Structures are given as C-alpha cells and as structure tokens.
C-alpha cells in the first residue's frame, strides 16, 4: 500500500471515530432533553398551582375554581396500603426462596423467569384480571367482591408489586457475603434461623428500599385502576366502595377542557414525581454506597 493511500485510510478512520463520538454525545443530549423538559415543566406548572388547598380540599364541581385532590391522596394511600399488604410479604418470601432455599435449582429458575415475565405483563391486563377476579363474581363469604371497589384496585396493584419486590429482594440477599451465612451456620444455628435473623437482617435496608421502589412504581399506575377502583369525586375511605386515586384523577383532569383542572393535574403530577424521585434516589444510595457491606 502506498503511503498516501495509507495516510488517507488512517485519516478516514480517525474521522469515523470522531463522527461516532459526536453522534453518541448527540444521542445522549437528545435523550436527556425530554427528561429535563418534563421536570422543568412539572416544576414550573406544578409549583405554581400547588397550595394548601390541594392537600386539604376535595375537587370542586365544574365551573368553580379552587379545590384540591385531598380525597385522591387519601385514596392512593389506601390503595397502596392494600397493595403493600398483598405484594410485600409475598414478594419478599419469593425473593428469599429464590436466593436462599432454591438457589440454582430448576424450580427457582422457572420462578425467576415467571417473575420477569409477570413484570412485563401490561398493567392494563392486570386491571382486566383484577376485574375478572374480584369485580365481577360475588364470592360468598368474601367481602369486597362483586362490584367496583378500592379493594379490587389494591389487589391489582399488589399483584404488580410482587415481581419487583421479589427480584430486588433476591438481588439484595445475593449481595450478602457468604462468610456471614457460614459464620451463623458454624455456630450451629439452624438454616431457617440463619436465613431469617442473619441474612435477611443484613440485607434489610436493601429489601426495604426495594419495596419502596415497587411502591413508587405502582403509585403512578393508572391503567389497572380505571375499571377496578373507578375513581370518586368525594371523600371515601371505604374499601368496599369506588375510591379516588391520584394518577386516575390526573388522567381525568388532563383530558378535561378546564384550565383549572389542568392546573390540578400538574400539581398532582408534581406530588407523584417527588415521591418517585425520592424512592429511586434512596434505592440508588443504598445499592451504590455499599451500606449493605457494613456487615462484612
């Protein structure tokens, strides 16, 4: 190869390299742009409409200004409580099984795979399932069934929490060094005891934040609530009745033609997003700073 051709090729290669670098940086900027835009808009629109009334009053009838989403906040709280009661214990239990009792077994792999698949099931389908399971049939001796209710919404959300809680619990338990387990077993502690009071305890900050992450994820879910919790314009804390929820209210208000309702939708979104950002940052803090490794 002549030296000119060599030089040409070499500069072409350097140019391609530079071009790709620029493209990658551009891609990063394009990805970050909508995120920044969403946050700026949320802060700008939300902060200007967030006031005390938002947290203390229920929605005003159409045409009157003011009002808040207090009933939706209460409703979301209640729905999430039901969801946590269902999702957290089952999720943690499944996670412990995957990491401590079934590690490496075919059964555990199958369950892990199913959990990942369940994680990918669209939330609207979860709503359909909860509707079919709880809203339609009137199961004798079981309260809350047979009509739209807060309980049905909570169950839908709880099912959605299980795979997230399960997988984060497993991940956190796997971070516990084996030496800790061996130390406990070496003292003659039975395996179940060592799992519960040593391994799980060591990983508990991680497990708790994992639960918070799942909590934050389902806090923003709207689709499964549309035909289970249904929404409500008034105060309600009754598990047996339709109930308001923050994301549901945001959805309804965003598509309404009233400026005042749009304002409330932005404020509600800001509240939701603050909750979620807090949870995600906490998870990141716990997993990256090695809080868990304090035991080793």
């Amino acid at each position, binding site marked *: 190869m002549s030296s000119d051709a060599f030089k040409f090729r070499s500069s072409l290669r350097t140019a391609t390299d530079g071009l790709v670098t620029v493209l990658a940086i551009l891609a990063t900027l394009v990805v970050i742009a909508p995120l920044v835009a969403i946050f700026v808009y949320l802060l700008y629109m939300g902060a200007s409409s967030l006031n005390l009334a938002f947290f203390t009053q229920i929605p005003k009838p159409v045409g009157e200004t003011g009002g808040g989403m207090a009933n939706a906040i209460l409703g979301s709280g209640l729905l999430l409580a039901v969801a946590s009661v269902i999702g957290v214990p089952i999720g943690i239990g499944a996670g412990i099984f995957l990491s401590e009792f*079934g590690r490496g077994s075919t059964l555990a792999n199958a*369950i892990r795979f199913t959990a990942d*698949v*369940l994680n*990918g099931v669209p939330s609207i389908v979860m709503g359909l399932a909860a509707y079919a399971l709880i809203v339609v049939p009137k199961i004798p001796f079981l309260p809350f069934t047979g009509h739209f209710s807060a309980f049905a919404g909570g169950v839908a959300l709880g099912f959605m929490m*299980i795979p997230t809680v*399960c997988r984060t619990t497993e991940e956190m338990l796997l971070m516990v060094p084996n030496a800790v387990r061996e130390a406990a077993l070496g003292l003659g502690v039975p395996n179940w005891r060592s799992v519960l009071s040593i391994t799980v305890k060591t990983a508990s900050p991680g497990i708790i934040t994992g639960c918070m992450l799942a909590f934050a994820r389902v806090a*923003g879910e709207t689709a499964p609530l549309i035909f289970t919790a249904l929404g409500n314009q008034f105060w309600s804390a009754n598990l047996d009745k339709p109930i308001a929820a923050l994301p549901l209210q945001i959805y309804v208000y965003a598509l309404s033609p009233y400026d005042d309702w749009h304002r409330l939708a932005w404020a509600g979104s800001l509240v939701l997003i603050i909750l979620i950002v807090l949870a995600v940052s906490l998870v990141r803090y716990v997993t990256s700073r090695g809080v868990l490794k304090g035991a080793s």
Partner: protein
Amino acid sequence: MLLCALSIFVIVLLIAFELVQRSQLTWHKFGLGFFYKVFSDSYSNTPVYWDPVNELFSARPFVYGTLVSSFLALLMAIPLAVGLAIFLTEMCPGFLRSPLAFLTELLAAIPSVIYGLWAVFVLVPLLREHVNPLLIKTLGWTGLFDDSNPTGLGYFSAGVILAVMILPIISSLTREVMIAVPHSQREAVLALGATRWEMIRMGVLRNARIGIVGAIILGLGRALGETMAVAMVIGATPEIHHSLLANGSSMATVIANEYAEAVSEMHLSALTEIGLALFLVTIVVNGFAQVLIWAVTRGTPAQAR
C-alpha cells in the same frame, strides 16, 4: 417461602384462565377472524371495524395501531438508546457516568400518566406547530404524512412519546450487556491498532449483539402494552389510516377507554379478548428477550465497569 414463590405461578395462571374464560363469547362468534376481519357498512359501503351497538367487533384497527406506533417508537429509540449506551460505557468521563445513568433510571420511573400529561400539553402542540408541517412538506409525497388531521394527535405523536418511554429500558439493558463483555476483548482489538469506534464495533458490539437485540425486544414488549400515555395522544378512533398523522387507536388504549363503560356481554368479551392477545404477545416477546439477555450476561459475572 416456597408457597410465596409458587404463588407467582398461580397468579400468572389465574390471569390466563380468567382472560380465556371471559373472552369465550367473542371467540365462539368470530374465531380467529376477530383479529383481521373487516365489516362493511351496508348504507355507505365504508369499512366498519368496531361497532358495539350492532355487536360487530374486529380488532384489526387496534392491532394496526399498536404495531405502527410501536414500530415508529423502536425506529426512533434504537439509535438513540444504543448511542447513549455507547457513550455511557465507552466514552463518558467518570464523573458524568453515574449522574447520567441515574437520570436515565429516573426516566424509566416516571409514571406513564405523567408522560401522557406532558405529551398532551407540550409534545403534541410542539409536533403540531413545528414538526408535522415540516414532515408534510418534505415527506408528503410518500403518502405517509398528510395534513387532514389538525389536532396533532395520532400514530406519530404516540410513537414519539413511546420512544421517550422505552429509551431508558433499552439503553440501560444495552449498557448492562456491553459491560458484561470482558475487558480482554477490548484490549485485544485496541492492541491491533484500532481506533475507539473500531474497538467498540469489533470488540464490544459484536460480542454484545444478541443481548442488544434482547434489550430491543424487551423495549418492544413495553411499547406494545403501554396504555395511558398512548391513550392520551393517539386520538382513540377505531379506524385504519395510512397517514401516520391520522388519529388511530391501539389494543391497550381501547381497553382503557371502553372497558369501564361497556355494557353488553359481547363488548366486554371482545375487549377481554384483546387483553388476552396482549397478554400472550407480551409473554412471548418478554420471554424471548429474557432468554437472549440471559444468554449474554450469564457466565460473565459483572466484570469491572
């Protein structure tokens, strides 16, 4: 513990069982034709797909809408996501890496209703005023963009917001598989005198390609099932249009819009069958993606970042 773990199986089976059972009615009446049949209006001779009053149901416009919006989303998201992953793993200065990764993680955690809210008030006006006229002017001749729809809602808007939503999933998984490529591969290519891009192309992308495909398919799974944001911007009309700027509807959207108000058994059953189809498709898509990603990251316990 075992009971808890097994309950995950039970839940999946329960969902499948209930959906199958509640969609029997449409299944018996329309069979597989439910997904492609076209009815015809006897007065005006125009195609009719979805007529709850006369109990004519065909999922065709929804399947079409879901496929078109997801495909548009993938088209926009793939290059950006892979670019971002390359930047984060191979080029980014160390001090930027973790804030950027954190930001993309946040993007994944924003609820879809908030994406929808933002899309309705910011993205759609932006597309309507600036992007759509440009597309109509430059690409109008393809027939894919015509200006018969002044609202700005439609397949294209849905595709854009979906792209924003699946970006973080694709890019974080792509990043994970790229990190799993052993360092020795990179060093070997560099030692042969390759530039950085050649190193990324030959040493990293080639080794990680199966996992990247897996990440893309997982993103597709998310896009197919995405409900709220799409429902807010796609326009919600059960029609098929070849223009990407026209109003449409998608499978998840029609369930969200009509299920709570449906009264006839047949209508409910038709919506449930769409849900069942969505359930099966996402299970297959996600399962496949999981296997691909697993094939790459298995056996290479997270190497040094």
